[in-house]
């Protein structure tokens, strides 16, 4: 099973990024092999639709679980279409969140926000 988390940095002590679509990196953690890979989020620089593209990256990484502080509705549509389970992060590093997840201490992310689509455009 693979877990994806938006991260501010490229190591296990990095903080979880507050944004999903604009996170600089994603941690892809393999629970069986305990291997962690940090991938660049090429969606972060998008002028629009970053959440959709970031979600596609998560789908393509073959993650089964996404742990994130928040998620917009377009990104959630993509994630849910791929049957990826969405959990809410807790305070702390990405490692703290992996530990919390494996200890069954995380809850499912219920609130999906409406996104900021188009509001920065004229």
């Amino acid at each position: 099973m693979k877990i994806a988390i938006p991260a501010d940095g490229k190591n296990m002590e990095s903080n979880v990024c507050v944004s999903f679509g604009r996170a600089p990196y994603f941690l892809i953690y393999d629970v069986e092999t305990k291997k962690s890979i940090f991938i660049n989020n090429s969606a972060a620089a998008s002028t629009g639709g970053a959440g959709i593209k970031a979600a596609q990256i998560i789908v393509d990484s073959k993650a089964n679980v996404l742990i994130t502080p928040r998620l917009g509705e377009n990104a959630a549509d993509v994630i849910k279409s791929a049957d990826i389970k969405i959990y809410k992060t807790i305070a702390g590093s990405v490692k703290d969140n992996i530990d919390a997840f494996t200890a069954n201490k995380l809850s499912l992310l219920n609130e999906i926000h409406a996104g900021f689509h188009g509001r920065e455009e004229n």
Partner: protein
Amino acid sequence: MKSMPGFMDEKKINMKIAVLSGKGGTGKTLVSVNLAAAAKASTYIDCDVEEPNGHLFFKPEGVQEENVTVKIPKADDKLCNACRKCVDFCNFNALAHVKDKLIVFEEVCHSCGGCILVCPEKALTEREKVIGKVQKGTSDQVSIYTGILKIGEASGVPIIKKLLDEKNPKTNKLTIIDCPPGSACIVMESIKDVDYCILVAEPTLFGVHNLNMVYELVTLLNKPFGVVLNKCLLEEKNPAEKFCIEKNIKIIERIPFDNELGTLNSNGEIAVHKNEKYRELFSSLLNTVTKEVWHETTINP
């Protein structure tokens, strides 16, 4: 040598004037509506499609409306071979491919048609989607056109195209285009074919920042323009005026900060219909703009 402009001068009567500003609330609609009303026989086009409000002043009659549509891609999953060329191509990230299905995010799509062109399997076709409408009505001798974009849609440009290149009757009338705020694509589309741009500015530092945005735009597009300073207080410093002097920008009118004008405007009244002093103010502005346009066509035909 051309004769001095008179009211029979064809170029003058046919001229298209855009009214724009870098932000909302500076007085675009105040200036547009009152210029159109001061001209008596004219065409007023509200291109501020996200929140058109000119109609609140004109209260047009005999309103007819027409939907505006754009083309959105539709995928045939049987033909799709999951190459994802369309997903990678889309600069707006309106497409995702999950579990052998293409997901189209309609509100994010800008209808460029690129995905259809890059699909090697011809799995994508287009379908029509309504994004808003245009309304047409009249108020005295003014023809009123209003563009209305549906909430959540990505771009009002198709509505502006419809408003401006439509079979808008080619009468010998002055056309006033009330632009959207800012300096984005939607504004460029609105001023593309105009003869002159009026930039409305507020007497604040924030006003200067916003004036600079539209100043850069009209300069880039090489449009003749002048500035109307709105909400002027005689005894106060006016940063927008200072900016104009520094940049050598022509100030074509100063509208005072005036309680009566503000009250009329917030009650949805057309000031030139209510008070002779406002008729004089906006007639004089119209005259100045007319001379500016005539001057432009003479030196730069």
